[in-house]
């Protein structure tokens, strides 16, 4: 019976939608965060699985393993905080009702895909989330958000269609089975895997499918960027994890390439992030880099089927860690341009930044340790230096982030922070430190990272980065102007596509028949027969008789 509680997860946002439509955003926006509460509670105390034969075929909802529960929990927490945060964030903009509508529907989709135990529900949630996020990205007026949102939507639709094809192929491979559980052991074809990798990859945003991320994140309101980067792009990773089999020769074969893509993505994000001049763009690139790590975890799991259990845990921890930290950073980046920061605000902000860089005593150190174990398990010692470069780079990135935020604080007349934003933001900022103490799997990993050699291993790349940062600061190095304005072929292509769709090539019309000429010849023909009815008939009679006589 208590399986029916799962209905509350999508039901609560739906109820919120109704409430919103009835009462209007001004009155109820402050309470909309409550719609995440059932999901949060169910992640702590999960109900038994629920099959829903009345819905689309195969519908089944559950969250019974660590990965799903963790995912549900952090998604709900992040969405709840962001919902509360967004109230003030968008208070001064138009179309609030529209924003909240899309927000709630995207939330609904995101939660639904996490609790989905079948392909249909996952796809429903995924699509709902993807398409509704358009409304969040396009919320602000002006050409830049419009272009960013357009690119986002174009790629999202392409991704949807690829996933649709991949999903059908997968269902076919599984002999019609729809439960994700059943897919775990069904081998996949090359086309299926490729379609799903590209389709989900477009959402996850690892290199080279990341093109929409750096445009969309800066364009969206801070709260939207937080959920977009913290929760939504990870849905792509979750999709890959669920849709593709665990132990598969093909994927094992491909995993080396995927590892390479992940590594490139991790470094590429850092490198391009350092070139950014806006904090949210930088964070977007940081997300690309972090998703690269997530992809590496996936590839490791495919490469070493024995490692899958541990990989699931690592994936859960990494997603929680990055989701919450990135959410806090995006909110902070949004705040830094609008409110005056106090010192303790900076301290709070430093927590998620340092956690991302993997400093000890944070969730970052814990996941990094597990990550190293994973690489060890994969016999990939040669890749370890990449990890070091990665964490040094991330540290540098975080330093630059703080630097950029400080720069944006220089404008005068910034108001103090509102109470309604302070609380959700602070909660998220503290999470990287608090969570290792509250959540046992993470606690174990963090405790394992406390020995001195481990601390040192975690610390020295950060210190190196700090040194480089100091050096740059002391020397007063600036970014060369050519690097500030990198060309963006994706945006150009997107605009071209829009033009093509708006003004498609229309073939010229054919010239109709010349009616006058036609009419003229018809008249002549008629005149030919109008000589005389009697005479013509008589001739015909004679002709007939003669023919009859002769023949």
């Amino acid at each position, binding site marked *: 019976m208590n399986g029916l509680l799962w209905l509350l997860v999508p039901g609560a946002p739906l109820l919120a939608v109704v409430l919103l439509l009835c009462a209007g955003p001004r009155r109820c926006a402050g309470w909309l965060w409550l719609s995440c509460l059932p999901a949060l509670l169910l992640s702590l105390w999960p109900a038994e699985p629920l099959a829903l*034969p009345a*819905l689309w075929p195969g*519908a089944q909802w559950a969250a019974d393993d660590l990965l799903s529960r963790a995912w549900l929990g952090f998604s709900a927490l992040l969405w709840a905080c962001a919902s509360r945060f967004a109230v003030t964030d968008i208070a001064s903009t138009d179309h609030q009702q529209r924003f909240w509508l899309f927000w709630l529907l995207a939330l609904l989709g995101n939660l639904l895909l996490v609790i989905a135990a079948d392909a249909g529900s996952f796809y429903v949630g995924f699509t709902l989330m993807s398409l509704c996020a358009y409304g969040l990205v396009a919320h602000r007026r002006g050409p830049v958000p419009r272009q960013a949102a357009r690119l986002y939507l174009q790629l999202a*639709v392409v991704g*949807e269609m690829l996933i*649709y094809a991949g999903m059908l192929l997968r269902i*076919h491979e599984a002999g019609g089975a729809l439960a994700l559980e059943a897919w775990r052991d069904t081998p996949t074809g090359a086309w299926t895997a490729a379609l799903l990798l590209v389709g989900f990859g477009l959402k996850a945003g690892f290199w080279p499918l990341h093109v929409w991320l750096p445009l969309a994140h800066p364009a969206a309101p801070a709260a939207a960027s937080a959920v977009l980067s913290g929760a939504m792009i990870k849905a792509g990773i979750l999709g890959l994890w669920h849709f593709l089999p665990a132990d598969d020769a093909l994927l094992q074969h491909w995993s080396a390439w995927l590892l390479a893509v992940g590594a490139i993505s991790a470094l590429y994000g850092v490198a391009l992030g350092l070139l950014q001049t806006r904090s949210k763009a930088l964070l977007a690139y940081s997300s690309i880099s972090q998703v690269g790590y997530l992809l590496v975890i996936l590839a490791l799991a495919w490469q070493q089927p024995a490692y899958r259990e541990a990989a699931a845990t690592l994936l859960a921890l990494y997603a929680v860690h990055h989701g919450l930290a990135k959410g806090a950073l995006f909110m902070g980046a949004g705040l830094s341009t609008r409110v005056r920061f106090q010192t303790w605000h900076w301290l709070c902000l430093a927590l998620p930044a340092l956690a991302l860089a993997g400093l000890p005593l944070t969730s970052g150190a814990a996941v990094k340790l597990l990550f190293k174990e994973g690489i060890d398990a994969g016999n990939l010692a040669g890749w370890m230096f990449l990890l070091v470069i990665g964490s040094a780079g991330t540290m540098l990135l975080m330093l630059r982030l703080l630097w950029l935020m400080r720069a944006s604080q220089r404008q005068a007349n910034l108001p103090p922070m509102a109470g309604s934003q302070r609380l959700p933001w602070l909660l998220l900022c503290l999470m990287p430190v608090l969570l290792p103490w509250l959540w046992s799997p993470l606690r174990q990993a963090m405790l394992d990272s406390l020995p001195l050699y481990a601390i040192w291993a975690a610390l020295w790349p950060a210190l190196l980065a700090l040194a480089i940062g100091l050096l740059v600061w002391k020397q007063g190095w600036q970014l060369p102007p050519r690097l500030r304005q990198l060309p963006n072929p994706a945006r150009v292509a997107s605009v071209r596509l829009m033009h093509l*769709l708006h003004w*498609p090539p229309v073939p010229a019309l054919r010239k109709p028949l010349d009616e006058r000429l036609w009419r003229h010849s018809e008249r002549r023909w008629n005149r030919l027969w109008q000589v005389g009815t009697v005479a013509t008939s008589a001739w015909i009679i004679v002709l007939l008789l003669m023919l009859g006589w002769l023949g």
Partner: protein
Amino acid sequence: MNATWTNLLPLGIVLSSLLPGLLIFTLREEQTRLRVALNLTGVLLKLGLVGLMLWGVARGLEFRFSIPFLPGGELVLQGDALSLQFVSLSTVLWLATTIYAIGYLEDAPLRSRFFGYFSLCVSATVGLALAGNLVTFLLFYELLTLATFPLVVHRGTPQALQAGRVYLTYTLGGGALLLMGVALLHSLTGSPQFSAGGYLLPLLETRTPSLILAFALLVGGLGVKAALLPLHGWLPQAMVAPAPVSALLHAVAVVKAGAFGIVRVVYDVYGVEPVQALGLHLPLLALAAATIIYGSLKALQQRELKKLLAYSTVSQVSYITLGVALMGPIAAVGALAHLVHQGLMKVTLFYCAGNFAETLGVHRIREMDGIGQRMPLTMTAFTLAALGMIGVPPTAGFISKWYLGLGALETGQSGILLVLVLSGLLNAAYFLPLIYRGWFATPKAPWPAAATARAGRPGWRETHWMLLAPTLFTAALALLAGILAGTGFSPLGWSQLIINREFDL
């Protein structure tokens, strides 16, 4: 034949709209109340009778009415699961469209004529659905052509007449082809009742050329109404008709008659096995796939909302043909479900287009900028239906595409999956900009003050309630058909029932 209620019920279903229709012809223009009363009585009566028949068929009762007509071909009306699917769709949409049309044509001239033909049109559709053999089907198919023509030219303008002429040229030509095809089959075996698996298997060896020609003629004739590729030219022109007519034409009456006919011919006349043995499904498949892509490409080029919707119909109706031509049970479920789904979605889209045109005078796509603020409910319905057309879950269109795609894989035609993906992309390419304009663009000029009768503020009073209520009703149905697809009474569930009987699963 003894006249028990099970025998008379099919006739009753046809007459329940035919008789009110004939009575309406005799009414004077100003007898509005009587006309509305007659209309609604007919609708509700038919709804009741169809409900009764649904109940009966689900319990395994047989409904069959027949009178002698031609040698070897009686007039047979029968209710089986397949016909009931179409009958229910027609009845429900007739209900919605009648209300819509009453609101739409308020104070317009020639309403008696309009509603008279409107009822005839529905009677012909229902008769066609209930037809128990090819001769009866042919009869109602032609009657449908005749009953819809006055509706297409109802406005009486030169454009309407031109469209009407084109419409007639195509449909009468198609009707003649169908007549030839039916007559050809009749000359071989007579016209026995439709039966699952067809009745032509015994002739397969001896009469191969005749069967191939008959199939080509039948599909050619039905393809005109189903708007298959070279025969689709009338459909975009016919959109000059008043919005309720376009809605009915595109969603149920005409295009569906063609698609339904193809379903009947393939499953109940030829049967899956002979069609495959003769290799007839492959050209049909290619034609359907080409139509899907072509219709979407043409839709992309349109500047007028209704024309765009018309080309989208060309594309979407061919999904049904595609599903049939795939010759597998799963694809067939998809095709039959899409018969209903497309009807619900397309009718909603045309209602919305009508609402925009009637309330604000919006006909062209670029005039839709920001219309979501002025008419949020209509725009919501439009959005839902358009997303359904693209195949976005959890709307009804997604369910169709799911089953069609799976069916294509099941029968080994993986290339069709590519067609579906491409079509989805193209659908998105022409529907998403509309949604964008409606919700996100800013209006170029302030909206005109609406006439008092249809006046209103955004929300429940954004347009005449008789225009708004059917729109929301069908949009909700389109959404529910997707969300609640797993239930037995959903289009999907009912299609599965039909196909289980058809393929003997």
